[in-house]
């Protein structure tokens, strides 16, 4: 349960970007999160209103884009979808795979109003 501290790190970055762009306020914050990031989107949504209070993003909306879990097989080369606890190749079933997407925890973009 570290979503609140992740939210605080998020707001610190949002405030920095807002300063760099001489923004008056932040309207929207877009995150991209993979299922293996160790962070729960729903809990982040709950923590966000607490963390944004009193910041330049006090009225900002949080948009979370959930990224797919994809692996590439080192045996047959196929790129397939996977489940968080079954990272095996969807084509040949081999477990020698490499994660292509799914562990991201990214602040993707910010929409802001300039003063």
């Amino acid at each position, binding site marked *: *349960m*570290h979503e609140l*501290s*992740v939210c605080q*790190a*998020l707001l*610190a*970055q949002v405030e920095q*970007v807002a300063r760099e*762009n001489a*923004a008056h306020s932040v*309207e*929207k914050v*877009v*995150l*991209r999160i993979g299922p*293996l*990031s*160790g*962070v729960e989107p729903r809990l982040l949504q709950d923590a966000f209103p607490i963390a944004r209070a009193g910041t330049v993003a006090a009225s900002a909306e949080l948009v979370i884009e959930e*990224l797919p879990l*994809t*692996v590439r097989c080192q045996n047959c080369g196929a790129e397939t979808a996977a489940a*968080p*606890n*079954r*990272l*095996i190749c969807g084509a040949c079933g081999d*477990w*020698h*795979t*490499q*994660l*292509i*997407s*799914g*562990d*991201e*925890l*990214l*602040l*993707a*973009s*910010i*929409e*802001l*109003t*300039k003063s």
Partner: protein
Amino acid sequence: MCDTCGCNITPGNKHLIEAGGKLSHSADGKAAVEVLHGLLGENDQQAAHNREHLEKHGVLAINLMSSPGAGKTALLEATIAAMKDELRIAVIEGDLETENDAERIRAQGVPAIQITTGSACHLDAHMVHDALHHLDLAKIDLLFIENVGNLVCPASFDLGQHRNVVLLSTTEGDDKPAKYPVMFRAADLLLLTKSDLLAVLDDFDPARAEQHLRQLANAAPVLQLSARKGAGMDAWFGWLRAETAARRAAARKLRPAERFNGVFRV
């Protein structure tokens, strides 16, 4: 997560950061700014600094993770008792409250720094950095960081360690890797602890535990041991010897070879 810069950029999401991203302007004229930072960037930066600091001194740092009661402290006690004449060992202990574990380690005659996290469920790189300031790294070969007992949060925070060792005790069930994939995916070594209890437990199959680990695309070695009975400990000591030797060799490579009378001394 990306170990070097914390940016989390993979071939699967790289297109998102390239010019002309779809979020450059919004319909109502508000400015949209592409950022794409890893949200744990600050932690990862501190972790990289910790790792650099450890490597300069040739210290191997191992992050020990497990659920509470899997036997991390008992493993450390047995490891220190067997290896303290061979390797200079120190321990950083993470718990919500009490100095109990640090006291158990100090009783073995090695330095132990206790971090009490209050209600935080994991250690982070900044806490470890503060603890490192209380240790003389020039006098340490092997640093164990005993993380807070928790199979969820510690997996998300890089501390600056070189290896993750995850303990799974036989009393917990062999399907833990399937239930806690983020943690077990991060393991460089899986220790099946309390193996002496296998004889009386009919629901823990070491082969099944290993199979669940492989399904996370993790090729880490799996060792069975009992710290209390001393079974299987030699393989664990062997792994530690090989890893500390590799870290020392890497540290020597960091220093330029000295030229002396036409002979390279390393």
